[in-house]
């Protein structure tokens, strides 16, 4: 479904992603693990087209020089030069890290905006009801301003927003970052629900343990370079991986 080939990204002369090859097949949940500054967020932003947008923006104002080399294919089509909203139309939707929401809009309005590109209002409403099913705590917060919700609630809103956009490939950037164990459990549970919707998921995380049982395959990157990849079992059997990313 998604096929990233020889991806290299430079910010000025600093290498953020180094010759990365990564693929996601339809129906899978794939995890990308790595420490801070490993290039996870850059990878996600690039697949969603945000890095490209930033590149144009910086170029326009003569700021930082961003270079993107390599191929990004989605469903057999090269999307390397597609704009972010083109990619959303194709079905790639990113839920960014640190649960970003539209803080002055209500929870319901936030979810509505997720369906911005969907023409039929009925479909949007269906998806919103589905999000309330996946995240029951949101039902009580419908008219609360999103900026006043807790971090966990904002994460639910952010994932919900991405789901309302009806993704084929959902990108989750560090969905568990900064959440309490209870909230983490809710998000991990939601991951199972998302799989049953036949949505393919590519997610990143620093600390792999809570999410590991639910993924099919994983990639481990360090300083922008892929150091290991394999199925869940292969990764769990590797003692180095266990100590570095699972704290065991």
């Amino acid at each position: 479904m998604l096929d990233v080939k020889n991806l290299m990204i430079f910010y000025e002369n600093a290498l953020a992603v180094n010759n990365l090859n990564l693929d996601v097949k339809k129906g899978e949940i794939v995890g990308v693990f790595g420490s801070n500054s490993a290039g996870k967020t850059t990878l996600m932003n690039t697949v969603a087209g945000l890095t490209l947008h930033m590149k144009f923006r910086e170029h326009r104002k003569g700021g930082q020089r961003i270079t993107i080399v390599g191929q990004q294919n989605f469903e057999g089509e090269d999307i390397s030069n597609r704009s972010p909203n083109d990619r959303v139309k194709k079905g790639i939707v990113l839920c960014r890290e640190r649960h970003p929401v539209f803080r002055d809009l209500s929870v319901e309005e936030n979810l509505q905006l997720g369906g911005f590109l969907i023409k039929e209002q009925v479909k949007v409403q269906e998806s919103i009801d589905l999000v309330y099913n996946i995240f029951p705590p949101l039902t009580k917060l419908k008219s609360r301003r999103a900026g006043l919700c807790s971090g966990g609630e904002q994460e639910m809103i952010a994932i919900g927003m991405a789901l309302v956009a009806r993704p084929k490939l959902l990108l989750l950037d560090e969905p568990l970052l900064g959440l309490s164990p209870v909230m983490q459990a809710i998000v991990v549970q939601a991951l199972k629900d998302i799989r049953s919707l036949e949505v393919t998921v590519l997610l990143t995380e620093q600390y792999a343990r809570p999410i590991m049982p639910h993924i099919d395959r994983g990639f481990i990157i360090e300083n922008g370079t892929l150091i290991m990849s394999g199925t869940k079992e292969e990764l769990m059997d590797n003692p180095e991986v266990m100590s570095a990313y699972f704290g065991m």
Partner: protein
Amino acid sequence: MIESMLVFGLVNSAVLMLLALGFSLTFGLSGVANFSHGGIYLFAGYLAYFLLKMGLPYFIAVVLTIFITALLGAAIYKLIVIRVRGIVLNEVIATFAIGICMLEFFRWLGFVTYEYSLPYIARGRFTIFETTLDYQRSLIIVVALLLAVFLWFFTHRTKTGLALLGMAQDEYTALAVGIDSDWAATYSFAIGGAFAAIAAVMILPLGIININIGYEVLLIALAVTVLGGLESTKGLILACIILGYAQVITSTFFAPHWKEAVYLAAILIVLAVKPSGLLGKFKELEERV
């Protein structure tokens, strides 16, 4: 005297609100302070004048004016501002230069004589609270209220309005759900232009069309936006009421020419005491969370 001060204070507030709404809206939604607002305002005035002179019926001329001025707003973003987007100083210089170019171009064309004026929508007057008020001024109050209601409805009940608000609050998240940032900015410039045109058609009939009005409009828009706080419609209304009544009070008790000083004093005081404005809610919310 109190009655007439109350009534004319309200008229004044409504005038300020019409003048500032377009500027404040563009600023709130796209983050670009469109300093060509005064130029756009006068452009709309002259456009309406010439359309009416061509013999078009009043209603059609007004609708055309609003539409064309909206296109002008969009064009200013698409052709010029887009190249400097993100560098605040350059945005200010670019839009300010466009505004001055437009105003001085009109002066060069010689649009300065007494024949340049727009017709009243309705002639006549009535008496309220022992004050005589003409229909045009009372219509200004009605239109200002209608625009405020429309604005609230547009930003909270329509998909496009919500998307523009979303883009103003968190650009990258908005991009991630498929909202295009240049589309949003173009849209907000167009709405700003349309609002300037509505203001021009309503307010310019009160006097003759004068190039200097363009500079004054910019000052008013800036004062109201600074006083009211960004991206807050309630703040905008409150600021208009404060400034509107402050003007009436100063011109009644001091002298009419002190009216202009009110804007400058308001900008200075607000920047010194509460830089986010009376109801600037962005910073406030950030502090609370």
